[in-house]
C-alpha cells in the first residue's frame, strides 16, 4: 500500500506540490492527469526519490519518507524506496553505451549482485514478454521510439519493483503503438503489478487505470474511481479538463 499525505514540494520559493494526498492499493493502477505544469511529473519524481519532499509524507509499506528526516536517514530510506519502485521516464534515458541486453542486466548484476548468466536468462525472458528478444544485441540508438520504450520497461522490471511509475508513456507514440503499449500494460495488471501512470491522454487510461487523480496548480482537484471521475466529475474544473480532452 502506498500512502501519500499532504505532500509539499517547493522550488525557488514557489510551491510545486501543495498538500497532495492519495492512496494506491496493491495490484491497482492510478492514473495522474492534468495540464502541463500541474505538478504531475514532480509528484512522480518525489515517489522515486529524485526530488526531496518539503512537507507531508510518503509511505510505502514500512518505508516512510518525511521532510524532517536528516540527510543521511532520508538517503537511506530513499534507497529502500527505490528498491521497490521502478521508473519508465518520459525520455526513457536508456544507456547509449550498452546494448539492449546490457541495459537490462546492468542493475541486477551491479546492484543486486546477481550472477551474469542468471541475469541474462531473466533479461531474455523479460525481453520476450515485451516482444523485444530479437533486438537484444542492438544498441538503443538503432531502435525506434516504441522499441526503446519497451527496453526501458524491461529494464525497470528487471529489478522486480512492486510499483512501476510511467511518465507520459504515450508522448512519443503514434496511436497504433500507444494501443500496443496499452495492451502490454494490461498484461502487467493481470500479473499483479501496481502502477502509477502520469499522462495527459485520458483515453489511454480508460480501462487501464482503476483510479484517476486530477491535478491543477500543484494541488489535487479530484481523486476517485476512473469511471466516476470521467462520467460525473464533482468539480467543475475536472469537468472542463475532461471535456477539453475529449
Amino acid at each position, binding site marked *: 500500500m502506498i500512502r501519500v499525505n499532504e505532500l509539499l514540494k517547493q522550488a525557488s520559493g514557489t510551491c510545486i506540490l501543495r498538500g497532495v494526498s492519495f492512496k494506491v492499493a496493491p495490484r491497482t493502477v492510478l492514473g495522474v492527469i492534468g495540464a502541463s505544469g500541474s505538478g504531475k511529473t514532480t509528484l512522480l519524481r518525489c515517489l522515486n526519490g529524485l526530488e526531496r519532499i518539503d512537507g507531508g509524507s510518503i509511505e510505502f509499506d514500512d518505508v516512510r519518507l518525511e521532510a524532517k528526516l536528516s540527510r543521511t536517514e532520508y538517503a537511506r530510506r530513499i534507497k529502500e524506496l527505490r528498491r521497490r519502485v521502478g521508473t519508465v521516464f518520459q525520455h526513457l534515458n*536508456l544507456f547509449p553505451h550498452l546494448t539492449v541486453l546490457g541495459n537490462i542486466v546492468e542493475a541486477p548484476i551491479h546492484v543486486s549482485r546477481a550472477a551474469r548468466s542468471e541475469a541474462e536468462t531473466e533479461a531474455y525472458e523479460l525481453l520476450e514478454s515485451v516482444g523485444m528478444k530479437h533486438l537484444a544485441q542492438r544498441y538503443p540508438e*538503432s531502435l525506434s521510439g*516504441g522499441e526503446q520504450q519497451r527496453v526501458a520497461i524491461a529494464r525497470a522490471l528487471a529489478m522486480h519493483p512492486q510499483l512501476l511509475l510511467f511518465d507520459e508513456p504515450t508522448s512519443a507514440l503514434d496511436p497504433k503503438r500507444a494501443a500496443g503499449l496499452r495492451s502490454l500494460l494490461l498484461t502487467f495488471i493481470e500479473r499483479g503489478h501496481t502502477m502509477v501512470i502520469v499522462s495527459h491522454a485520458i483515453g489511454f487510461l480508460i480501462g487501464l487505470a482503476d483510479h484517476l487523480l486530477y491535478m491543477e496548480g500543484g494541488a489535487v482537484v479530484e481523486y476517485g474511481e476512473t469511471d466516476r471521475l470521467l462520467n460525473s466529475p464533482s468539480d467543475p474544473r475536472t469537468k472542463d479538463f475532461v471535456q477539453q480532452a475529449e
Partner: protein
Amino acid sequence: MTTSINKTRHKRSSRHYSCFAGNRDPALPVHKLASFTIVALVGSLWFTTVSAQQVLRWGADPSGGAPYVFNDPNHPDQYIGYEKEMVDALAAAMGRRPEFVASDWETLVSALQRGSFDVIVNGLEPTTDRAKQIDFSNAYYVFELQLTVRSDEDRIRALADCHNRVVGTLGNTAASRLMQKDGIPWRGYPDPVAAYRDLELKRIDAVLMDVPMEMYYARPNPKFKPAGQPFSRGTYNVGLPKGKDKLKAEVNAAIYKIIRDGTLEQILRKWNLWNDAQAELQNPIRSGQPASNVAYEITSASFNWREAIWRLTRAAAVTVLIAFGSMFIALSLGMPLAIGQWKGPRWLQWLCTVYIEFFRGTPVLVQLLFLYFGLPAIGLAMPGWLTALVGLGLNYAAYESQVYRAALTAIPRGQWEASYSLGMSPVLAFRRIILPQAFRIALPPMTNDFVSLFKDTSVAYAISVWELATAYRELANASGQFLLLGVAVSLFYLAMSLPMAHLARRLERRLQRKEAPEVAHVEVGR
C-alpha cells in the same frame, strides 16, 4: 683618420639635405629636384655603410657570463667583464666603436654566420668543428680546465675518478668534448650558475669548467673545493666569419698591439686571471717575434654521426619517459580535480579552481624553473628529468581536468536519474554509466593534449634535461648540421607521435562502431 672623413661626409650630406628641405621656390625644375633627391639618398646611404664599418659588433652570452662579459650587479643595465674591457681596447686599436650584441652561447656560431654581429668574443676555443664554419684570430688567452667538487667530497681527486659519476659543464665546450672523448657521463648546462647550483644540490657530483669561470663562480664558495690542478690547456680566440680576411688582419693586429703595450696584461691582472700560461703566450710577442700559432693542445672532437644518432636515441627515450610519465600524472590527477571542481563542497571547488587557473595561467617554462631552482630552497631537490615529468604532469592535469569536466557535464542528467532509480549509488552510476560515456567524448581532446604534451617536453631544455630538443640544439651547434639533424629530430618526434595518434583514432572508431552498429531504422522523437 677614417673618423674625420666620415664627419665631413656626414656634414656634406646633411647640407644637401637641408638645402633641399629649405628650398621653398615653387619654380624649381622637376629634374633638379630629382637629382637633389638622388644625391641626398646616395649620400645618406654611403653615410650609413661607412658608419657601419666604424662599429665593431661583437657577440657574446652575458647570462651567467662572468668573468667574460656579464651584467654589472651594481648597475644591471651595464655590461662588465674582462673580455668587455679587452674588446674596448681592441676596438680602440682598430679605430672602431664597440657595440655589444647579447646572444646565446649555444647559437653564437650560427648567429655569426647569419651576420648578427661581426665577431665572437666569448672565450671561444678554436675547434676543428667550428673551424669548418668560421675563422679564428690569433689566441688572446690560454685557458685550462678545473674540476670542482663539494668540499665534503673525498673520492674524486681527478677527472679520472668520475667514470661512474655525473659531471656538469657547459654544452659544446672544451670540457664537454673532453669528457665525451673520455667516456665520462656529463650534463650540459646553459650557464655556469646552474651547473654549480646543481653541484651544491647534489644533483651532480662534480663540475668541470674553464678556469676563468671556476675562479669567479666556484673559488669564493666555501661549499666547493678544487679537485686536482688545472689541466688541458687551450686558447680563446676571436671568432670571425669565413672570408673576412681584412677584418681578421685588423683583429690580429689589434690583439698584437694590446699584448705588446701591456693593456691585455693589465686587464687580466685586474680580473685575477694572469698566470704563467698567459706569460708564455705573450712573452714571444712582446720580444718582437711575430704572433705565431702557439701550439697548445686543442681539445676537439670532430662530429660523429653514429654517436649523434645514438645520443638522439637516448634523448628520445628520455622524451618518451617524460611524456608518458607526465601524461599518467595528468590523467590521474585531472579526474579528482574535475570532480572536485564540479561536485565538491565549496572550499574544494575553490581550491581546484585556484590550482587549475594557476597552472593554466602561468607559462610551463616558469613552472619548471620554479620547481627546479625554487623547490630546493625548501629541501626538495629532484633530478631534472623527474622535475620535468612532475612539472609537465601538474601542468597538464589542469588541462585534462577541464577536458574531463566538459565531457562529464555533457552527459545528460537523465542518465544519472535513470541510474539512481535503478538503485545505483552515485559512485556506481559514475563508474558504470557516466564515465564510459564521458570517456568517448573526452578521447579526441585527450589525444590532442597528449600529442602536444609530447612536443612540450622540449621545455625540459631549460633545466638541462637531455631530451630531444636539447639534443638537437647541442648536436647541431657542435656540428653546424642544423638542417640534417633537424630532419632527424623531426623524424624521431613523428615516429613517436604518429603511432599514438593512430592508436587513438582506432580506439575512437571502435567506440563509435559500438554505439551505432546500424544506422537505419531510427525514428524521430523517441
